[in-house]
């Protein structure tokens, strides 16, 4: 029998501290849907996705109801579509519309994989797909796009970096009437993980099985509540112990939900992504965890150190709790989706440079950051290149998801609604780097020895 405290702890985590499973994502390989005829290819995709994922939402909701654990999103990730474009040719937009139709048919809120992997160069289909991203994200509602422009083994593909600066800006322009939401559905990666269940950067890697279930857990609120209860005089390493224990419990729940979903859907279980993914809800903020450690504001000196410890402790606690860990695994810092981050930006404590430093030690990268609409494409490329360099050198995933707020200036706000939250437009350094970006070419892969 469990003790009263154990039972109440679990109930409090769910009821008061916003513990949830953030997403159950079904990864579906589309390799067998490739066809030299684009219409046939789209038809095969539609049939395969609607067959495999027809019960995804139903099963997710049933588990939620039976077990009392909120499962916020049910989603799908697919093989990078650029590969299918390479085989079929034609207008990639047809694939975007097909994916959107599939998502609506099975009832998932996002489908990821309108993607290209171009870390070393463009192959057939890559350039056409990248060029179509702005329009694809403007005419569809549920499709998410991502492009991998660098890796530790390949270096950084600067021609792609240059192109992506223009694409990000164009995505925002084409959705200017809708809070520039297009740019919020596009992620530019370095070292993109192939089994990531989180949007907007999810895609189903080519090394993955035909169909798998990946689960993304969350729970910044639970970690914050655990730290809030701790004695304020505790040294840092003891806070790390508390985080590890909490992460263990959160992850065990994710593992349980993933196993159940995979059994009921008859699909192999992939991974648990051990992430702390904030939401704009009160008490569900990563920034507030850092503040609970003793920072008056997120963004103060000491933030990077606290985040490094948090990120590491979450992984250490989570790894033992799951049979298979993968994806992004770590703390996310999406500015517009985190109430504490939004406050820190408004108060002037958190700037882009500090966020960049934070991304060197946490899970993802510059995420959901709104910049002034008159920022040039080359400056956006510069931001992407810097962020990719951090990922490349540190052998970790980094990403850029920034939203140029067209026709708006620093200090104004974009209201995305829902989990995407609201973003204050951040003042950023507008010094040009066009000459460097226009060089194109590649930044060679870094040395893997003599590390200092």
């Amino acid at each position, binding site marked *: *029998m*469990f003790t009263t405290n154990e*039972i109440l702890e*679990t*109930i409090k985590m769910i009821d008061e501290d916003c513990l949830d499973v953030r997403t159950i994502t079904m990864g579906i390989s589309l390799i067998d849907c490739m066809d030299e005829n684009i219409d046939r290819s789209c038809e095969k995709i539609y049939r395969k996705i609607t067959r495999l994922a027809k019960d995804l939402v139903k099963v997710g909701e049933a588990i939620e109801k039976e*077990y*009392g654990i909120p499962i916020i999103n049910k989603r799908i990730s697919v093989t990078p579509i650029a590969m299918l474009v390479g085989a079929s040719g034609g207008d990639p937009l047809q694939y975007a519309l097909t994916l959107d139709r599939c998502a609506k048919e099975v009832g998932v809120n996002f489908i990821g994989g309108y993607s290209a992997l171009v870390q070393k160069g463009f192959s057939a289909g890559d350039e056409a797909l990248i060029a179509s991203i702005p329009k694809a994200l403007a005419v569809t509602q549920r499709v998410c796009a991502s492009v991998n422009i660098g890796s530790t083994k390949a270096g950084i593909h600067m021609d792609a970096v240059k192109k992506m600066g223009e694409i990000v800006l164009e995505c925002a322009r084409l959705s200017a009437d809708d809070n520039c939401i297009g740019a919020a559905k596009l992620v530019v990666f370095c070292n993109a993980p192939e089994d990531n269940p989180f949007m907007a950067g999810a895609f189903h890697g080519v090394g993955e099985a035909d169909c798998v279930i990946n689960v993304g857990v969350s729970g910044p609120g639970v970690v914050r509540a655990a730290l809030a209860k701790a004695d304020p005089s505790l040294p840092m390493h003891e806070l790390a112990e508390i985080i590890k224990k909490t992460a263990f419990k959160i992850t065990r*729940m994710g*593992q349980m939900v993933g196993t159940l979903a995979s059994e009921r859907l008859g699909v192999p279980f992939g991974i648990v992504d051990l992430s702390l993914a904030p939401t704009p809800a009160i008490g569900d903020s990563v920034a507030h965890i850092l503040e609970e450690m003793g920072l008056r504001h997120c963004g103060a000196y000491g933030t990077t150190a606290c985040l490094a410890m948090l990120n590491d402790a979450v992984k250490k606690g989570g790894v033992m709790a799951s049979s298979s860990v993968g994806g992004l695994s770590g703390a996310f810092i999406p500015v517009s989706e985190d109430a504490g981050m939004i406050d820190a930006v408004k108060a002037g404590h958190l700037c882009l440079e500090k966020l960049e430093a934070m991304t060197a030690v946490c899970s993802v990268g510059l995420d959901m950051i709104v910049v002034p609409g008159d920022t040039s494409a080359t400056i956006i490329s510069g931001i992407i290149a810097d962020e990719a360099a951090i990922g490349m050198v540190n052998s970790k995933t980094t990403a850029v998801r920034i939203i140029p707020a067209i026709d708006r200036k620093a200090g104004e706000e974009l209201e995305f609604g829902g989990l995407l939250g609201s973003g204050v437009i951040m003042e950023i350094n507008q010094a040009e780097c066009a000459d460097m970006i226009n060089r194109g070419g590649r930044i060679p892969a870094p040395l893997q020895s003599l590390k200092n």
Partner: protein
Amino acid sequence: MRAVISVIGKDMVGILAKVSGECEKANMNVIEVSQTILQDMFAMIMLVDIENSNVPFASFVEHMERYGEQIQVKIHVMHETIFQAMHRI
């Protein structure tokens, strides 16, 4: 299959009988009960066997939540597996 029913609220006469009465209606056998008073609040934990239950588990969860509101306590019903996963290695 077993479930954990937790009842939290102000202590009152007959609370145990009321909750176990609902279990009986659903044909759930009560295996273990523990109760404590935490700062004036009554907390009761019941472990019940739901193997031979005559209602779908999800509807029982909803029913007990509503029943809790009626008698002014908070009732949660959850599968035992969640607690196993979280608190036992």
